[in-house]
């Protein structure tokens, strides 16, 4: 071996060692590698990590007092509201129209609107009140605009409309209050905003589900979803009473905020609609649980798209539920053999 070869090998080794040291030094200067494992080597999460309310989705069949009697296709892509008026005319809103159906389900008329309706009410003499995001409009039976209210501002999000004589009430979920308008569409009063000192419990409205209606008893009934109650107010905004409590079982209102919607049967009983655990239930006039119209398994087809049903009742006591996923009205009729009425109803 020549002197030149020996030196070259030594030089090569020295250079290699230095380079290795350099690379090692560079790597050691990097962030410490985090601990990793192949996902296939992991155990799946146990039950503690799974949200499960399936036990509450099942309902006792004995509590189901209604059965589905049919469906009415509205043809609306984005149905948003419904109401029943005189002669059991059915008003369904969505897609910038109000469609009117007769008692037999046949289309009667269509009112064309300038915006997407969020709530509808059938008033006297065939007039129709329609709530939009920040105001409402009143039309006659031929679709002629009679009144346009003043706007409630950019924060408003109207979710319900009701009529009592000349006064119009709207539920404003954006401002969490009820607003009363006069016959000219001007604001005549407002109440229920939390902490405004009007002596009311205050409306807790975490999401845009805030319903109200006027009753034959002369009271204004308002859902207070964050308090899980249906509450009664005088027409000038004084709190009278409330019923309802939070519970996942059928007797209570589930989740953070329910009921999402409600209506009243001709005999004064309440029909409530809940979101989350989707169910439509009956309470008597004093707020005592009576039974279910339909439960989660009857009302939900796909768990990924949980619908929120708006409900209305016709003069025969049938419950009409607007399915937002299909645009159909689902019609529920009382079963032939209804269980005996509760004591409170017999009184």
């Amino acid at each position, binding site marked *: 071996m020549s002197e030149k070869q020996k*030196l070259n090998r030594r030089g090569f080794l020295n250079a290699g060692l230095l380079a290795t040291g350099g690379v090692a030094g560079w790597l050691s200067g990097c962030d410490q590698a985090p601990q990793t494992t192949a996902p296939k080597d992991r155990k799946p*999460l146990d039950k503690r990590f799974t*949200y499960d309310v399936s036990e509450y989705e099942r309902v006792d069949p004995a509590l189901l007092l209604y059965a589905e009697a049919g469906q009415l296709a509205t043809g609306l892509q984005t149905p948003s509201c419904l109401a029943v008026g005189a002669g059991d005319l059915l008003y369904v809103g969505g897609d910038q129209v109000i469609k009117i159906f007769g008692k037999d389900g046949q289309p009667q008329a269509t009112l064309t609107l300038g915006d997407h309706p969020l709530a509808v009410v059938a008033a006297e003499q065939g007039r129709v009140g329609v709530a939009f995001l920040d105001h409402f409009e009143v039309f006659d039976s031929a679709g002629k605009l009679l009144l346009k209210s003043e706007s409630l501002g950019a924060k408003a999000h109207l979710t319900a409309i009701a009529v009592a004589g000349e006064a119009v009430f709207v539920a404003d979920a954006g401002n969490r209050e009820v607003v009363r308008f006069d016959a000219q569409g001007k604001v005549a009063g407002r109440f229920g905003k939390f902490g405004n000192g009007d002596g009311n419990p205050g409306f807790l409205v975490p999401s845009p589900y805030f319903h109200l209606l006027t009753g034959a008893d002369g009271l204004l009934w308002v859902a207070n979803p964050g308090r899980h109650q249906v509450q009664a107010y005088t027409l000038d905004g004084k709190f009278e009473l409330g019923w309802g409590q939070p*519970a996942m079982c059928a007797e209570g209102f589930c989740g953070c905020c329910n009921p999402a919607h409600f209506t009243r049967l001709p005999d004064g009983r309440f029909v409530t609609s809940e979101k989350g655990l989707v169910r439509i239930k009956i309470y008597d006039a004093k707020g005592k649980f009576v039974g279910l119209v339909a439960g989660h398994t009857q009302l939900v087809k796909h768990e990924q798209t949980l619908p929120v049903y708006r409900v209305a009742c016709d003069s025969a006591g049938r419950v009409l539920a607007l399915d937002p996923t299909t645009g159909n009205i689902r019609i529920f009729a009382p079963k032939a053999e209804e269980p005996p009425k509760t004591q409170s109803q017999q009184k």
Partner: protein
Amino acid sequence: MKRRVFFGGLARVAAVLGLGGLAGRLAQSAQAAHTVWQIDPWKCTSCGKCATECVLELSAVKCVQFYDICGYCDFCTGYFEPQPNKLNTGAENQLCPTGAIVRKFIEDPYYEYSINEPLCVGCAKCVKGCTLFGNGSFHLQIRHDRCLNCNECSIAKACPVQAISRVPAGKPYLFKTLEGRK
């Protein structure tokens, strides 16, 4: 002369190695800076796989709170068990198995809920509770202070609804805005 040759060769090797390393690191960082993995909250079904499919032992996926749409509920269904004994911070009432959600009183009757991220395993239990009953302000996001930005994300591969995709690194988070829904 021999010493000069040796040092000359050494310098050349070091220069080549250094240049190679620098080029490699630049290429890697350029790719990483271009896009990152993220979860589309509108597509996520809270299946729980994010907790177990990440290559990190403690997943890079965490629950985040989008305060803009939170209802600040007293009875938060992302914080409380479905049927709590009481609406207080007792461990038996809390939904999160690791106690990663902090409940703070704001003013009657509103409470703020925030995530203690080091405790969160990304199981999405709270996300499901919040989405089912509330506004869905809790949702999962890949946290980029932890994510390794793998070429092939193992969670994306396992996601049953293809909710995970690459997004521009300049906008690395996807929140539940109406624009995002479109």
